[in-house]
């Protein structure tokens, strides 16, 4: 799932980069927007109360994490979301909690069995 990502930061795993990128609320918002449709960096910049350079920096972090990709469109950069990376992140994000939710669900099922059966 991660093998399409460019490994340009040795020592830091792809996954770490994905989560570090998603730790910021603005970056999460950008990802959600560009997953719906591609937007130029300047269109994105107009949405947030911060400088063009600051938004550009956020986009660069997301791009390094493989969460978005940039494409030159004339004088503009078009940003679009990369669904595979987001999906992979979502899976590993919830993994530990999911494991325990699954276990507790199964524990509950065993407890709901008639006594004789569970003790057999």
């Amino acid at each position: 799932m991660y093998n399409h990502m460019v490994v340009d930061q040795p020592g830091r795993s792809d996954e770490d980069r994905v989560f570090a990128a998603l730790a910021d609320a603005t970056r999460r918002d950008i990802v959600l927007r560009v997953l719906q449709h591609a937007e130029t960096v300047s269109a994105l910049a107009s949405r947030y109360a911060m400088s063009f350079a600051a938004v550009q920096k956020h986009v660069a972090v997301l791009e390094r994490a493989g969460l978005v990709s940039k494409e030159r469109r004339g004088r503009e950069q078009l940003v679009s979301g990369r669904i595979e990376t987001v999906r992979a992140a979502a899976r590993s994000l919830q993994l530990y909690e999911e494991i325990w939710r699954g276990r507790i669900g199964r524990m509950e099922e065993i407890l709901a069995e008639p006594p004789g059966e569970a003790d057999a």
Partner: protein
Amino acid sequence: MTVLSTTPDTEARTLTVVAEFAAPPARVWQLWSDPRQLERWWGPPTWPATFVEHELVPGGSARYVMTGPEGEQAGGWWRFLDVDEPRSLELEDGFADADGRPSTDMPTTRMRMQLEESEAGTRMTLVSQFASLEQMEQLTSMGMVEGLTEALGQIDELLAARPGR
């Protein structure tokens, strides 16, 4: 009905899971103490666990093998640090190869399980302590739990609306 909460604490490097069961503590305890019941819930249905050893005394150990859909095997081991039936259990949880030999290059997790009587029956509190912050990040994606849950909900909707992507 199971009430469940998951609370990460990055300073203590712990993740706490709380669940409630409609059964008395002595009954919930059996889910941990009887290896035949334990193996019915420890592994996911696609990777059922088989406990080949389960010596529930302080200092005792347990070994299990999980078998995947393609017959692939993954092993694990526990070392019981504290056993107080039917109230609490503390153990070290680690990975092992398919032959059951503990992996030395993988960090272990310490787990404390506590059972208390509650209105519903039993409240189970499970605290997992990780060896390092890195390990915790790997396993729980530290700090992301709250902020991203909402975002991921939206992403799920997007994915549902965009078949084939």
